[in-house]
Every structure is written in structure tokens, then in C-alpha cells.
């Protein structure tokens, strides 16, 4: 199956990239853009076919490597 992990900064953590993007958009004349946050998406091809097991596996990957729990949160989506 395929898994998609979305990783973002926890609320309150400074996101310099997001801020810079918001600035740049304003500079390009886009109006009405408020807060901008930038995160990562990681898409994985998994051999596992059982959804529950796959989720467990990806959860473990997030804890071990993909996300940094001190400053980041993550969300997992699965798809066939």
C-alpha cells in the first residue's frame, strides 16, 4: 500500500520559511494572504497490504526518523 505522512511544525514553533513565503507572496502583489506554514509530505510505497499493520509500521517510522517530536507533529494517511 501507499502511505502519506504530512509533517508540520507544532503550533507556536517559529516557521521562518512560512514567514518568508508570506512576505514574498505579498511582494508579488497577492493580497489577503495571512499566516503561511510550510511542512513536508513523505510518500512511501509499502509492501505491507494490511492497513492496520501498515499504519503501525508508519507510526513507528515517524517516531524513529521521519518527524522530530520536539518541534513537529505528523499525520498519516493510507491509500491502496
Amino acid at each position, binding site marked *: 500500500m501507499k502511505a502519506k505522512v504530512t509533517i508540520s511544525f507544532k503550533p507556536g514553533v517559529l516557521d521562518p520559511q512560512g514567514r*518568508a513565503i508570506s512576505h*514574498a507572496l505579498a*511582494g508579488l502583489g497577492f493580497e489577503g494572504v495571512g499566516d503561511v506554514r510550510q511542512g513536508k509530505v513523505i510518500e512511501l510505497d509499502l509492501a505491507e497490504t494490511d492497513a492496520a499493520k501498515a499504519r503501525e509500521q508508519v507510526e513507528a517510522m515517524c517516531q524513529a526518523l521521519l518527524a522530530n517530536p520536539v518541534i513537529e507533529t505528523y499525520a498519516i494517511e493510507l491509500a491502496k
Partner: protein
Amino acid sequence: MKTAILLFPGTNREQDIIKAVTVAGGKRPSVVWHRDTALPEGTDLVVVAGGYSYGDYLRPGAMAARSPVLNAVRTFAADGGCVLGVCNGFQILTEAGILPGALVRNRGLQFICRDVNLVVGTEKSPFTGGYRKGQKIRLPVAHQDGNYTADAETLKRLEDEDRIAFRYADANGVVSDETCLNGSLRSIAGVLSENRRVLGLMPHPENSIEAGFGGTDGLPLFKSLLETLS
């Protein structure tokens, strides 16, 4: 030769370029702020210097490529002006569409600062006239996103039109995918525009202009520009 150096928030090698141009015998370049909409009267050469314009946020060079001064540079280049983009400058020129391709994260993901061997791909340009085709030179690199990529068609055109200015090589001057330090396709370290008046390259010729401070293999590039543009 009248040189203008672009200064974006986050540019950090502008002094190195100023030094290189003056050591090569040129007049002290003027510095152009990113919000300016015009280049100084009579500019012969625009240099887009290295650094981290806008912090490299979003993509290296992305925001600088959309700043007001780049419109002036685009027009200048279209009119046949000479433009040199080094490192972040190369990234900016590709982001702006002035040069083809894109530069992505190094194969090993890490920042790499070291002297590398390069082979000169062509001597037919205002930048490379001081070298011989096939000549092996040594310049430092200092980048994290220097992995050159482009589609097959673009790569073929670059090769057919003799627009690959420099390639990464090993100590014997052999070019190969395995020894290419950052994963660049065809080991590309620098490319020329169609009219050969715009050069973008990842290595830093400006940090190789004095014996004892990184060698002198970068000097011919600036001397060649001076000769062509004076």
C-alpha cells in the same frame, strides 16, 4: 568593464566577487539592491553572487528570481548583456528561467565545501576564453543544492550546442557519474545560455584568485571577461 553585483537579503559572497574583479584588474563593481528596478547606466556585466538569498527558503533562488531587479537583468540578458551567476546566483538564474534546468539537493544531502577538479567544456564564451577546452582546473565549491537536473531534451541541446561550460571530474580529469560530488546529471557544474553571454556555475571562481587563498584557477574567468568587455 562596468560590473554590477546584485545584493539580495541573504547574499553573502558579494565581497568575494568585488575582490575577484579588482584583483583581475577591473574597476570596483557597484552594488545593486534587490528592490532596484534598473541597472546602473552602462553596465557591461551583472554578477549574481553566492549566498542564501531569502534564506534559501522555499527553494534556493526562488524568491530572488521573482524580485524587481531580476526583471532588469532579464531584459539586460535578452539584449546580449553578460551575466555571471555563481552558486546561489546560478540557482537564481535557473529559477528565473534565464538558464535552463534546476538545482536540487546534493545527492548526499549534505553541504559540501571543498576544492574540486573541473574540466572546461568549452572555451567559446566571454567567461571561458581564458581556458582551453578540456583543461583541468581546480576550484572550491560550497553548496548544499548544486545537483543539476534537466530533462533529456534540454541536456541534449546543451551538449549539442556546446553550452556545458564546466563539468566535475576526478583527480585525473575523468568525468563520471560516480565521482560527481553532488549527483549533477552529466556532471554539469556550469552552463551557458543560448547566446553564450550568461553563465551559471556552482563552483566559486572568486575564491580562487590568489595564491595562498585557494589558488588562482578562477582568475582566468575574470580576466577573460575583462578582455572581452573592456
